[in-house]
């Protein structure tokens, strides 16, 4: 069976390689992709949208529907992770650590959560004290990563980047916090509810901006109709609409990345992990 599979894989690979022989050469100006749509985008984008980064204009304006449903797919991925993995049953075994002395208390078969004073902390089963160097380095790094993520979102119109990349970078800064301290630190700072609300609000911002265009007299996602609502030069209204949409995408992606990580690493219990 394994040998048969190997032959099938080799045949498919050979067919694919044979197929690539018919492709137009890389960067060929006479290829179909370069002769129909690309010309229009390259010539008209700056004139129509005032956005120098053509990729962002195509993704968020010309192909706005595509990006909207992409964001919904991300949201659904987070939702699925939550529904499949989240486990609300309480663990019967608990460990508490006395902060001043470091003595660890092991509670077995307790039905209810013990109320402990400030001098005790609830810890993991395989508790290892966080390394001072890693903690300090991450504490210095995380704010810069987050500011960079905000820059990527806000500057998506002018340079590579945008809501998706910025959201992923922001989400990974949250994951870095969870790895360098422990998962509880992250879950205490940003509650599960807040993450869920962020994910939903991100998608709603996108759909909301798209829907507002309809009572203003345009089609769905036609940002040009937002001109009376926004201050400044009416020529920049499409760029502003794209920025709003990118912020929505960034929020949703950031929250979903954190939701997926927290649920995978703690088997849905949100108490202990990497």
């Amino acid at each position, binding site marked *: 069976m394994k040998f048969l599979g190997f032959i099938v894989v080799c045949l498919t690979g050979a067919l694919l390689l044979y197929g690539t022989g018919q492709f137009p050469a890389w960067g060929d100006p006479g290829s179909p992709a370069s002769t129909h749509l690309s010309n229009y985008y390259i010539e008209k984008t700056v004139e129509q949208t005032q956005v120098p980064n053509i990729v962002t204009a195509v993704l968020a304006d010309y192909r706005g529907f595509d990006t909207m449903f992409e964001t919904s797919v991300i949201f659904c991925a987070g939702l699925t992770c939550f529904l499949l993995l989240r486990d609300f049953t309480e663990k019967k075994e608990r460990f508490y650590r006395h902060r001043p002395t470091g003595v660890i208390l092991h509670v077995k078969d307790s039905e209810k959560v013990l109320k402990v004073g400030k001098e005790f902390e609830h810890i993991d089963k395989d508790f290892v004290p966080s390394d001072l160097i890693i903690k300090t380095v991450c504490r210095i790094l995380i704010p810069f990563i987050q500011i960079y993520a905000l820059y990527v979102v806000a500057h998506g119109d002018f340079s590579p980047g945008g809501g998706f990349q910025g959201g992923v*970078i922001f989400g990974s800064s949250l994951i870095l916090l969870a790895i360098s301290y422990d998962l509880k630190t992250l879950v205490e700072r940003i509650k599960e509810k807040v993450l869920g609300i962020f994910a939903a609000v991100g998608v709603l911002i996108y759909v909301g901006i798209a829907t507002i265009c309809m009572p203003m007299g345009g089609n769905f996602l036609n940002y040009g109709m937002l001109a009376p609502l926004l201050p400044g030069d009416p020529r920049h209204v499409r760029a502003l609409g794209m920025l709003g949409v990118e912020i929505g995408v960034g929020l949703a992606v950031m929250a979903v990345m954190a939701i997926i990580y927290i649920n995978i690493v703690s088997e849905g219990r949100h108490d202990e992990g990497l």
Partner: protein
Amino acid sequence: MHWPIDLIVLTFVIFCAIAAISVKDLLGTAILFGAYSFMMCLLWAIMGAVDVAFTEASVGAGVSTVFFVAAVFRTSRRTKD
């Protein structure tokens, strides 16, 4: 002229892909996938698709590696086959 960089990076991509399916240690596979994604990111950047390269670097090499490591942490570290 940048074709030698192209070829070197492509060789690394193929090397990482073959290594990732032949290594028994799943943690090593996750790291190799990260390396693979980073090499793909370099390829996109060489071809001038900077937006795609950015996405590949942040999603492929960054977050998805962490997800793989988290999944390995909660399952088993060695493959059955």
